[in-house]
């Protein structure tokens, strides 16, 4: 059984973070064995974490299980995944600084603020995309209405920092200005692809976040 990445750090954390202080009295060898057993349990109990597909769903709530050590190892892995995922959104240009602004506005009084704003975007945007598609198909062409719809979509996207969506909306608007219907059509196809990718990434991100949230509440309540 190979050692898990970050296991040495994890062992130090197990000593300091563990609620069950009896674990402190174990030898390094005993700790090492327990870590290996817990890793196996993790794989069995939380297999969905290791699945990269968008059909990710967690049917088990970790807080139902009284295995604090298991919870902490899982937490550390999840936290790393969340950090990595978020960084990739920025590096790949999906999100910009506005997303950080939203996170800064999240606090105890609004603990799910970012997810709520993203949910509003994901509620508005499919409707707008459908309306845009429908309006493109109409004759005579209504570029004024198209511009108005894409304006709303652009604003909505920029609220969450969805920079690629925002940029594609600007391209679409330019085509509207030029009364270039074919340009609008092509731009819409790109917007739909961008939207689908962004939606999948954001949904995966929040699913991961929700998995650490019960544990963070549990840790905080023990302080």
């Amino acid at each position, binding site marked *: 059984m190979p050692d898990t990445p970050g296991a040495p750090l994890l062992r130090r954390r197990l000593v300091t973070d563990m609620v069950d202080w009896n674990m402190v009295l174990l030898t390094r060898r005993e700790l090492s064995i327990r870590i290996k057993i817990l890793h196996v349990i993790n794989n069995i109990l939380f297999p969905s974490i290791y699945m990269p597909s968008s059909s990710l769903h967690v049917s088990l709530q970790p807080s139902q299980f009284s295995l604090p050590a298991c919870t902490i190892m899982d937490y550390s892995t999840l936290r790393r995944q969340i950090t990595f995922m978020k960084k990739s959104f920025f590096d790949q240009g999906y999100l910009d600084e*506005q997303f950080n602004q939203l996170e800064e506005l999240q606090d105890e009084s609004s603990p799910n603020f970012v997810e709520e704003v993203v949910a509003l975007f994901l509620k508005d945007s499919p409707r707008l995309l459908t309306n845009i598609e429908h309006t493109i198909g109409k004759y005579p062409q209504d570029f004024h209405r198209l511009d108005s719809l894409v304006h709303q979509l652009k604003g*909505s996207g*920029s609220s969450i920092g969805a920079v690629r969506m925002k940029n594609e909306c600007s391209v679409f608007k330019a085509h509207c200005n030029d009364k270039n219907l074919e340009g609008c059509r092509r731009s819409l196809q790109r917007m739909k692809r961008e939207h689908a990718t962004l939606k999948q990434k954001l949904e995966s991100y929040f699913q991961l976040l929700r998995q650490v949230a019960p544990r963070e509440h549990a840790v905080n309540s023990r302080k």
Partner: protein
Amino acid sequence: MDRRRIRVLLVEDEEIHRVVARAVLRAAGVEVEEAENGAEAVRRVRERVAGGGGAYDLILTDKQMPVMDGLEATRQIRAMVVATPIVAVSSDSLPPDVQAFITAGANDFTPKPLTKEKLGHILAKFGLA
């Protein structure tokens, strides 16, 4: 002596923008009232003028809204001889859009979305910080 809280009227029809702006304003310790279009904004300002409850310290308004847009609301508020600073917060941020708001009587303009930094500048500019 207790400084009373700054009162801001937020004029915005779309929920996502209201949610974000409301959070930014509250984080700055400001009291927020909201109007979903220009007509409602004009009505609220008129009520304050008539009721003697004290004017808003600041009005933040979007441009495109149903019933009455931000430009017309700005004109009507100015017609009431209300000197409250009006700042347009809009995604249409080309020079002609900005100029249209200034001509209508707005004091300043900032592109959406509203951020902590932008609000800080606005509050400082109008002596509300």
